[in-house]
């Protein structure tokens, strides 16, 4: 059953005729995702790869295909508008891959989304995958394997690292959610662990965090009180200097807040096994589950 996406996900791709949008739409289709619609303004009526109808608006795509999820690949200056368009059309799950959306735009989007029933994943994220069923995003599908470990992460390639460790040890994943590296995101670490805690197919959880903000601390506090499943954590950025933005817009220690040390302490306090190095993430969880 997994979390948020599966066999019954019907995907729309906003920006499907762009270079990245087209490339990754194909990647998702090859993986087996049911891509039912594409949206590019002023390109309505075309067919993408002779298979997927392209619409001018998400509203039309939703009305004519019944898409229940969308993957956004539009440039940062138009991405906030694309998210709002999808929410206005009533699309249940919005996955925004776009990196570089201004924070001011995201504050307004977050405020608006609160008044709709849509869920946003991202922005600036690799997407979400339920192995063997549905891939929405840019992650390489072949490194995943169907199974029972839920993975939530603020990073892209670091998630691949952890997933690959699991897969090469014979452990599959229920769902992997890349929540994104921006300071303001739709689905938080806490939201994701709540889904995994409630999912009967998920038997263990990997939580990958990084410096900046307090998302890991909030998730740890909730897990301590509400979840008996084994959890392993890793926090990137123990050696990052304060006050510098480490690639991700959200990865910054400001005013002494959001350090790796504080996050690791919060995880440990909640009884979460913390991996000492990024190469031991899977083993740390497997020991906790043994």
């Amino acid at each position: 059953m997994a979390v948020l996406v599966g066999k019954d996900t019907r995907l729309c791709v906003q920006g499907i005729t762009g270079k990245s949008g087209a490339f990754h739409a194909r990647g998702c289709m090859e993986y087996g995702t049911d891509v039912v619609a594409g949206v590019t303004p002023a390109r309505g009526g075309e067919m993408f790869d002779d298979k997927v109808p392209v619409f001018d608006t998400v509203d039309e795509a939703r009305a004519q295909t019944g898409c229940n999820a969308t993957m956004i690949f539009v440039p940062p200056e138009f991405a906030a508008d694309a998210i709002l368009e999808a929410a206005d059309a009533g699309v249940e799950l919005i996955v925004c891959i776009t990196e570089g959306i201004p924070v001011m735009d995201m504050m307004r989007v977050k405020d608006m989304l609160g008044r709709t029933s849509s869920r946003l994943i991202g922005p600036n994220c690799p997407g979400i995958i339920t192995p063997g069923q549905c891939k929405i995003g840019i992650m390489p599908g072949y490194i995943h394997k169907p199974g029972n470990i839920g993975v939530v992460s603020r990073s892209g390639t670091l998630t691949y690292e952890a997933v690959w460790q699991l897969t090469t040890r014979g452990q599959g994943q229920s769902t992997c959610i890349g929540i994104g590296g921006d300071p303001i995101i739709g689905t938080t670490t806490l939201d994701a662990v709540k889904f995994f805690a409630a999912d009967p197919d998920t038997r263990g959880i990997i939580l990958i965090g990084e410096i900046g903000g307090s998302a890991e601390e909030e998730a740890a506090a909730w897990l301590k009180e509400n979840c008996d499943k084994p959890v392993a954590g890793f926090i990137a950025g123990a050696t990052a200097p304060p006050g510098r933005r480490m690639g991700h817009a959200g990865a910054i220690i400001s005013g002494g807040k959001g350090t790796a040390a504080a996050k690791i302490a919060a995880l440990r306090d909640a009884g979460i096994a913390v991996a000492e190095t990024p190469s031991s993430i899977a083993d740390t969880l497997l020991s906790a589950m043994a």
Partner: protein
Amino acid sequence: MNIHEYQAKELLDRFGVANPRGGVARTPAEAERIARDLGINALVVKAQIHAGGRGKGAFTNGFKGGVQLCKTASQARDTAAKMLGQTLVTHQTGPAGRVVRRVLVCEAVEAEKEFYFAILVDRATGAPVIVASREGGMDIEEVAARDPGKIIREPVDPAFGLQPFQTRKLARKLGFGPSQMRPACKLFAALYRCFSSLDCSMVEINPLVLTRGGKVLALDAKFSFDDNALFRHPDIVEMRDAAEEDPREVEAAKHRLSYIGLDGNIGCMVNGAGLAMATMDIIKHHGGEPANFLDVGGGASEEQVTEAFKILLSDPKVKAILVNIFGGIMKCDIIAQGVLNAVKSVNLSIPLVVRLEGTNVEQGRKILADSALPLVSASDLDDAARQIVALAPKD
């Protein structure tokens, strides 16, 4: 990116945020003219560099203090002459110091009271918040730790902006009297307009002052901008002073690479910010010191990889290099080719460990193996970190 104090003053002026009168001078003659135009006998001359601690700093020519009080225009000229073109060393510049190219000449203000006032993005709520305190001129973190009750927090709805009633509430909580309410509220509203119009991630006024004459002024402003929004603020981008930045970071930015210089001797090139941080961490875990953070991004080209490699090699501190790539969108054969091109063009004489995993990993490993380059191929991330730490000189 950071801006100079005089540029921050320009932004405050543009949005009508009251602050001391003055101007920026590039020559002693300009400083004298600005001082004369001000027509007052309480002046301050401030060296413009991107570092704190200027007042307590010293110039390499022996002149003490990058912030000086003056009484006359000719004094202002003489003071500017002692600062301009000279190197100022403060506790934040390191021993090399920074060359002063401009001075700010403005009215010296006698403060009756000092406050702290900042507007920033609150990540937890996804909305702006105002943080203020009656304890101005101090380190706000210290105040918060010592006496959290002295910190005022006022959340702002991002859709509506700061409302007039909120500015009145803030003014009263800070203790402004009836005659000071209006200028205080006006300043808060103007500062919020500045914060939101310029896509700031933070504007910090420390101190905000009530002068002996009853004026409310922003005495010092520190701006942080949202890098993601700079595309719609070409005027802010113009304010960048490359002379104040790490030349390696300036070069990396040209090639759209995310680079941050550190103090160790192991250069790293990684794809993805999280993995790049984790790679620095594992080097440290095994006893090494990373020389940098370098994220070549999810879809870097062969040319970007080559440029990234050149930036690493241009740093004399770098005595060993670790390349760690988990190819998703990025294909390992492209990375391998980029590394190959770079190594060929620079005559590599230091140890290089390469760890490739992911899309097209077999082709990538084959390209490196067939190249006969003197590099070590690592089997996984842990192996890569152990090997590079073993190969890097200990210093």
